[in-house]
């Protein structure tokens, strides 16, 4: 456990046989999901527990004739992804806590300049180098507010190896559709878990590409939008000679500080996401209909919750689970519905209450919300969750 390394596999991985079930690790399934969604650029810097993604991509990208580069750090990695995306590629980088911290400024750049890309953060214990090989869920609020300034955020969080694949496809599709960076927030346990996954056949997968300009270069106004609020993105080098900046910009892409342009700019940035909340907020329910006590959870902790629901019901406790697959935008409606009419809600998580705070925010007097935090680098067990039931019942 001392060294912060993972064993590289020597042989290039056999490419996924589509439509078949395979035994995969979470990080492998996430990589396969990215490839299935059309990822054709990867830049990264190794860090536990995300290194397997970088290694997987180093094997697969050259086979497909696509660029892979191990940059000098995480700031450089996300910078390269922004550049590659502007030149028309579907770009991804993968990291863990310390690297995610380094990426924040350029994540903000991708947000304000509206550059599609996917950032994987496999959470480990923190802050700083923290617990490099242990599980934690401490980056939930950083994924929301890590970069400076007000901005929307889209963050998906898998609980299983299958969900690693599915949510990664969703992450790329969302990034392309909304012209925005998307964060894939996994945790160490899910990333290193091995499970059977049924991969969809090639034709069964919906892959979304960004909308490119439908007008000739002379007519292109890079940040002008139609009713969708999402501007079309031209690939650099295709005759559309426009300007991209991290400064607040006008429709033509040039910096502006005019109040009558700045305010509408921010309104559109938020609006393009908020008007599609219904499409973006994904949750799953287990035994929720008749539950007296609801568990609200995500990531590896949701796995323990599912077991707790089963065990609890065997012992006559009517438990149900709402699993959050989208952490941001926070699935408010689903959470409100899950809280309504329950005796209590328990929010177990591997941090000091980063999602329970949100649950309390939307609870609005509906029921009693109890936080269950664990910070010792190990998972919350089903028995621990059931142990809290004495307080509730």
């Amino acid at each position: 456990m001392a060294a912060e390394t993972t064993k590289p596999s020597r042989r290039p991985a056999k490419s996924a046989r589509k439509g078949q079930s395979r035994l995969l690790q979470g990080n492998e399934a996430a990589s396969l999901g990215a490839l299935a969604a059309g990822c054709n650029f990867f830049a990264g810097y190794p860090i536990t527990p995300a290194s397997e993604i970088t290694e997987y991509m180093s094997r697969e990208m050259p086979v497909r004739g696509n660029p892979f580069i191990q940059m000098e750090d995480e700031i450089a990695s996300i910078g390269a992804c922004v550049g590659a995306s502007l030149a028309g590629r579907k770009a991804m980088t993968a990291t863990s806590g310390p690297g995610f911290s380094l990426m924040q400024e350029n994540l903000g750049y991708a947000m304000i300049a509206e550059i599609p890309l996917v950032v994987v953060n496999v959470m480990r214990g923190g802050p700083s180098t923290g617990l490099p090989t242990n599980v934690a869920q401490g980056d939930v609020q950083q994924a929301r507010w890590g970069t400076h300034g007000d901005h929307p955020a889209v963050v998906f969080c898998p609980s299983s190896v299958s969900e690693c694949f599915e949510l990664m496809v969703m992450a790329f599709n969302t990034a392309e559709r909304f012209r925005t960076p998307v964060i894939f927030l996994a945790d160490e346990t899910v990333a290193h878990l091995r499970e059977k996954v049924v991969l969809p056949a090639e034709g069964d997968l919906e892959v979304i590409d960004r909308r490119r300009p439908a007008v000739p270069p002379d007519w292109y106004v890079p940040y002008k939008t139609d009713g969708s609020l999402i501007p079309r993105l031209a690939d650099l080098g295709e005759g559309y000679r426009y300007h991209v900046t991290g400064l607040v910009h006008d429709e033509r892409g040039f910096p502006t500080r005019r109040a009558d342009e700045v305010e509408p700019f921010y309104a559109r940035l938020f609006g393009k996401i908020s008007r599609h909340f219904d499409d973006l907020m994904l949750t799953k329910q287990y035994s929720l209909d008749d539950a007296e006590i609801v568990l609200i959870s995500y990531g590896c902790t949701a796995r323990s919750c599912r077991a707790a629901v089963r065990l609890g019901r065997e012992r006559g406790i009517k438990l149900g689970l709402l699993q959050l697959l989208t952490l941001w935008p926070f699935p408010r409606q689903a959470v409100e519905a899950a809280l309504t009419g329950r005796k209590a809600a328990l929010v177990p998580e591997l941090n000091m209450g980063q999602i329970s705070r949100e649950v309390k925010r939307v609870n609005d007097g509906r029921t009693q919300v109890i936080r269950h935090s664990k910070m010792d680098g190990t998972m919350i067990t089903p028995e621990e969750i059931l142990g809290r039931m004495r307080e509730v019942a």
Partner: protein
Amino acid sequence: MTAVHRSVVYDWLRHDKKFPHVWCPGCGLGILLGSLVRSLAQGGYDKNQVVLVSGIGCSGRLPVYVDVGSVHTTHGRALTFATGIKLAKPELKVIVVMGDGDATAIGGNHLIHAARRNLDLTAIIVNNLNYGMTGGQYSPTTPLGAKATTAPYGHSEPSFDISALTVTAGASFVARSTVYHVTQLDQMLGQAIAKKGFGVVEVLSPCHTNYGRQNRLGSQVEMMKGFKKQAVRADRWDKVSPAEREGRFPIGVLADHGRPTFWETYEGAIERAQAIRKEG
């Protein structure tokens, strides 16, 4: 001559970008802008195949005026964005404009690694010996003893020699010039852009409103005269005695060699990967 000049300006500057520019009157960046568009025009490049990338600072504002794809990135990170653009579309001419702060302070690590990798990029490093945009604080190129808004009693650190640094890091082409030596600057930029591999042009440029004022160097004109006195042609540098080198620097081509670029060696990896995969 004027006719040629007018057409260069017409062809290469953005028509939908309003002038005047953001720089102080007399700043060297205007001269560099002129030099850059002239070298691009003379090189006969297709505007659609050129991308200008810049960092943050006064120098970072340069690309917005040029009628090519332009990306104004974050402070110090221009080379990383440029790396992604170049790898995504190797056929593009990618030119990166950075300040000395961008290139050697916050982005110093990116600079040495871009040079080591020999990415096919051109880096133009505008060395005005201080941080212009934030008000004249010291940078890694501020000379020992010089004044800056964060070195009110004289700077306590020795400075980087940008050109020497990039030569050592492995750049294919390194040249230094100043905005006083405009004809040479045009040539150096032209050569660097044409050169395959990582090309660096360090451009000495006066920041009279900050560095010049704090160090009582006079107007921008006086500072330009200073460049004239300090600069020595590279081929004559060997003849300058160590005592006379104080405060002076060589200008011209400082390194020029061929070496495979990143993409060329990566293509080898692609071939090997595909061969292994075919074997199963």
